[in-house]
């Protein structure tokens, strides 16, 4: 009997010890919403740092790392390509559990805003060190790395000023001059003529991951939230959604799902235009070399004559995770990569990453003529447009809003629903999911 008890108590003690080991005595996880750590600028730049990135961005970092290591003997930079599709699963779970993250993370603008809203203590506060660099970065891109009080959490990397990529051969065949398109009404009228003359549609929309509606909204200077309130049913939003609906009702939209379908529809000339960001250019040169000379770029059509003619789509930042033990080196590397004209331009040349660092935009490579576009100064067009991008508000609830807006977009475009009433009910749904008020 006594033997059994003692065995059991040993067992209990063992389980207890195991429990502490596995749970770390922190069953609730995370910790309080405490302010972000301030970056210590005094520390030595030494030791190793690890960076999570993906795709061409990871390639660029791997290419630039040796030069940095040479400048700072004893430093080792590890770049890990974690893939794009599931990168945020890894980052989110690391932020949520307060463990497992590397020193530096690549995060896209709208997602960075979600993270700042949800996990403000997950990143180093870079305000003191990055603050002085503010004027050198594109204002809209800068806004995606700061909170509502202007506190800086991340340094902008690239930006996605938007324009319309036009297939000149299709336009010619239809007798439409791309340069004559000034407003969205003109764009739709051009689309109707192109369809009538050539049978081609005007643009591709992915109903499960649409990026056209947020692009139009940002062109009007607005995000899904304004002043912390829900703004998906403002007059501007209804106007943008009405453009989407008209595109559909006139039969100008080729609905395709996924990146592959988007690329092949453009490559095969099923559509005459791609209203999207500058990075699309990299896809054209990589996947459609045979179409050289067949594209031209015009600024986005305006909502009213003389209105803003661009928007933003995409763009990443680099931040320092508060789990980093080597923040000084991390900051030095971020600065080396992003706040440096030569490196930024080399990333545009080699990897097609369009810099948010303004001094880089006056480089001759950007202002000069582009061979692929038959000698047009395409990058200059985008560099000029970038200045007009309106900063918009994302908040920590962006993901929730975004899912619901995507649903609304497909309801309006394919379900034939009314833009105003659909967006009104979307605003209600966002309100109940986020406890935010609806802007009036």
């Amino acid at each position: 009997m006594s033997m059994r008890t003692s065995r059991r108590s040993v067992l209990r003690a063992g389980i207890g010890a195991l429990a502490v080991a596995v749970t770390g005595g922190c069953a609730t996880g995370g910790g309080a919403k405490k302010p972000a750590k301030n970056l210590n600028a005094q520390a030595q730049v030494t030791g190793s740092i690890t960076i999570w990135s993906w795709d061409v961005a990871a390639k660029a970092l791997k290419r630039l790392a040796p030069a940095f290591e040479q400048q700072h003997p004893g430093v080792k930079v590890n770049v890990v390509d974690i893939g794009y599709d599931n990168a945020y699963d890894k980052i989110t779970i690391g932020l949520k559990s307060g463990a497992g993250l590397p020193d530096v993370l690549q995060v896209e603008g709208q997602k960075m805003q979600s993270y700042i809203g949800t996990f403000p203590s997950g990143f180093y506060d870079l305000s003191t060190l990055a603050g002085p660099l503010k004027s050198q970065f594109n204002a809209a891109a800068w806004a995606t790395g700061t909170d509502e009080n202007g506190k800086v959490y991340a340094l902008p990397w690239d930006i996605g000023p938007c324009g319309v990529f036009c297939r000149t051969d299709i336009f010619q065949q239809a007798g439409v001059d791309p340069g004559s398109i000034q407003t969205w009404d003109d764009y739709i009228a051009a689309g109707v003529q192109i369809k009538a003359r050539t049978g081609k549609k005007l643009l591709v929309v992915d109903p499960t991951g649409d990026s056209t509606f947020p692009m139009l909204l940002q062109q009007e200077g607005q995000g899904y939230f304004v002043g912390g309130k829900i703004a998906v049913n403002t007059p501007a939003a209804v106007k943008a959604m009405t453009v989407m609906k008209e595109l559909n009702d006139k039969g100008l939209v080729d609905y395709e799902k996924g990146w592959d379908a988007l690329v092949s529809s453009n490559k095969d000339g099923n559509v005459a235009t791609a209203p999207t960001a500058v990075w699309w250019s990299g896809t054209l040169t990589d996947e459609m070399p045979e179409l050289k000379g067949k594209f031209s770029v015009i600024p986005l059509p305006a909502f009213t004559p003389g209105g803003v003619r661009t928007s933003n789509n995409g763009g990443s930042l680099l931040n320092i995770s508060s789990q980093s033990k080597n923040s000084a080196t991390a900051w030095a590397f971020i600065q080396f990569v992003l706040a440096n004209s030569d490196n930024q331009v080399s990333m545009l040349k080699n990897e097609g990453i369009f810099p948010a660092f303004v001094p880089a935009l006056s480089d001759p490579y950007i202002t000069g003529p582009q061979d692929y576009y038959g000698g047009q100064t395409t990058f200059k067009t985008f560099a000029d447009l970038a200045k007009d991008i309106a900063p918009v508000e994302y908040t920590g609830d962006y993901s929730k809003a975004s899912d619901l807006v995507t649903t609304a977009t497909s309801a309006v475009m394919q379900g034939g629903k009314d833009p105003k009433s659909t967006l009104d009910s979307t605003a209600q749904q966002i309100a109940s999911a986020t406890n935010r008020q609806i802007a009036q």
Partner: protein
Amino acid sequence: MATATTAPHRGSARFVKGRTRPRLRVVHWAFAGPAAALFIVFFAYPLGASLYQSFTTDDGGTQTWAGLAQYRRMLHDPVFWKSLYNTGLLLIFQVPLMIGIALVLACVLNQSWLRFKGTWRIAFFLPSVTMLVAYAVVFRVLLKTDGGMVNQALGWFGVSPVDWLNNPVWARVSLIGTITWRWTGYNAVILLAGLQSIHREQYEAAAIDGAGAVTTFRKIVVPQLRPVILFCSITSTIGTLQLFDENFVLTKGGPDNATMTPVLYLYKVGFDQMDFSYASAIAWAVVLIIGVLSVIQFRFFGQSDKAASTARSERRRR
């Protein structure tokens, strides 16, 4: 050992049928011990944590007790209800369709005159071992609206292009089609093994009685195969209730949530919207639904509980 002397016959205490009161003895636990320890550490603890989390609200890593708030929110969440509706549709249409095809297929593969059986079998089994990443790409190429292979093939018969993945109705059809594509052969192979355990004499007797193929199928195959059919049905039912892979790679639950399922939804709520409390509540609703369905299945098919319980355990982890 004190315990050894209290048990009059060493063997009788340890067998399930034994009458002696169960007691803690090292050797009894020796076999189940490792599994039990692993379950407690790596399953029971996370499970408890998620249950606790479902009763909280989560704000930037701070959890506050919120009682049933998340569950109340679920009751008024149209997306959650739509995901259940979609699951219901799949249970009504997809599962019987797939089991039906698999059954017919198994019968054909069991014909004595059929040659190259191994090759046929692997041809039909192949889809279930495909890597998910390939599945996504290949089906998007096949189902692309403009110039996709399926639409081109339909074009030969004068059918105009179908918007397979972007129209709410057709997206559901595509989902049903792709799940069926992936798992029919798998079920057919299992049913085939069941068929092979039916004795030849029974077919021969039926043939002598002048029974046709359909009669034989109805009178001999189906009743004999009942436990295996049940096994496949239950496996597929649970697979459907936890459906994630297919709609995740194919449509991400869209368009207009037409292909959303509860598990995909909870994944989105947790990982996209970073609301892990609500995600946990949805997960526990799924657990509850599976639990209730299990009880119903046990009531209906009590005598075949062995098949049922094994089937319930068979599901893949990703």
